[in-house]
């Protein structure tokens, strides 16, 4: 089925309704297997059992970044091809991406407390994820304040593209800022290569989280389409009320 066929929301809804149960099932299965592997994974010789936070933390970071990638593709779809579903996809991705970024930050803070002795350090990675989270919140604020979905879709698309250009620059400048202000003062993992006994469960968990992302994304897109239908039906209803 070509992408253009999906421009019809009804056809898209049929597809989503057919695919979603399978996606949910696959997510649950991979999560179950991943958690089983995580439970069997060895503790780190330095960090003990807290290393298991990583299985939430790292996929959260990856998908937080992927969320903006999805929004960028959707933005191109909105501005270049005027695909009617593109802004639905972009709007649905924003809160999910923000959620995964939040998971990354929250688990990172909880991990930092026992390992570094503090919830937060102004480390380069933490800081750039924090700025990414702020960008997500700005995007959500844009959606909250807009009344007309069409208008907000295009504004959000431009913001997504500007953000996509800026995120690498922000990452680079935060790295610079960090090395300038404070030498690496915290124990960093990744000094040594990760052992396969930890890496394989991590990759399985990353796959599970990716499936979760797309499950949530499809469901959110369906909800957004239905929400827009409700909106236009209400407007039609309001028009029919005799004066």
């Amino acid at each position, binding site marked *: 089925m070509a992408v253009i066929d999906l421009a019809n929301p009804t056809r898209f809804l049929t597809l989503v309704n057919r695919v979603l149960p399978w996606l949910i099932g696959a997510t649950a299965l991979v999560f179950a297997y991943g958690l089983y592997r995580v439970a069997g994974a060895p503790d780190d010789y330095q960090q003990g059992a807290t290393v298991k936070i990583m299985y939430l933390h790292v996929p959260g970071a990856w998908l937080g970044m992927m969320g903006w990638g999805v929004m960028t593709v959707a933005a191109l779809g909105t*501005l270049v091809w005027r695909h009617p579903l593109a802004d639905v996809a972009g709007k649905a991705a924003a809160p999910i991406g923000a959620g995964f970024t939040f998971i990354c930050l929250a688990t990172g803070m909880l991990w930092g407390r026992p390992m570094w002795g503090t919830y937060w350090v102004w480390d380069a990675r933490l800081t750039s994820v924090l*700025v990414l989270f*702020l*960008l997500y*919140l*700005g995007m959500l*604020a*844009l959606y909250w*304040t*807009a009344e007309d979905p069409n*208008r*907000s879709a*295009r*504004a959000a*698309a*431009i*913001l997504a*593209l*500007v*953000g996509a*250009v*800026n995120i690498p*620059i*922000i990452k*680079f*400048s*935060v790295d*610079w*800022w960090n090395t*300038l202000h404070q030498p690496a003062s915290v124990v960093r993992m990744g000094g040594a290569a990760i052992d396969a006994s930890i890496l394989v469960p991590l990759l399985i968990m990353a796959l599970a989280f990716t499936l979760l992302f797309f499950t949530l994304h499809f469901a959110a897109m369906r909800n957004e389409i239905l929400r827009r239908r409700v909106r236009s039906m209400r407007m039609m209803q309001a028009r029919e009320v005799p004066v």
Partner: protein
Amino acid sequence: MNPFLALIGRDMRLAIRVGGGALMGALFYFTVVAMTPFAIGPDLNLLARIGPAILWLGALLASLLALDRLFATDHEDGSLDLLMMGTMPLELAVAAKAIAHWLTTALPLIVITPVLGLMLNVEMSAMGWVALTLLAGTPALTFIGLIGAALAVTLRRGGLLLAVLVLPLTVPVLIFGVAAANAAIIGPAPFGPPFTILCALSLASLVLGPVAAAAALRQGLE
């Protein structure tokens, strides 16, 4: 007369005359910098150390302040529609407005920076360097803010939304601006690299800002 220069002249006249508020940014900057010692205490050594950071933060906030009026007034009285229908490319028109905005809000702020630096116990010889970093960096703030202003006017919202959208994007400018200023004053890191990157950020946003802002206006107000 060249329409580009004419538009710059028009916006500057509007800003300078009654009801404009060109100097409001500089006044706000002055007030913010004056308020900071009340928050962190009158210790002159501490103020000297974080002086460049205070000046940069003040400049960042002051440049945001007037941005939401950049397109809003023109949108209200219809002259924005004329600009969009005119023969001059919208990108150029938007850039002209940004340049006028920079000349009327950022430039006065840079001019009064040396005086404020004295109050923060930053050495006189170092103030030139701080002012130079502001001169190189504030165009980036204006042109990134331009995108936010265009988005805000298409959504008919301004003020806080604009700040929330624009501030995270200005993180690199703030980092390299303060880094260059500190390198010039305290050292030991060389002044050149952060300063040239700051110039690069300004030049890049000079291109990206008008294109994105014009796209936002075209998409949003059609």
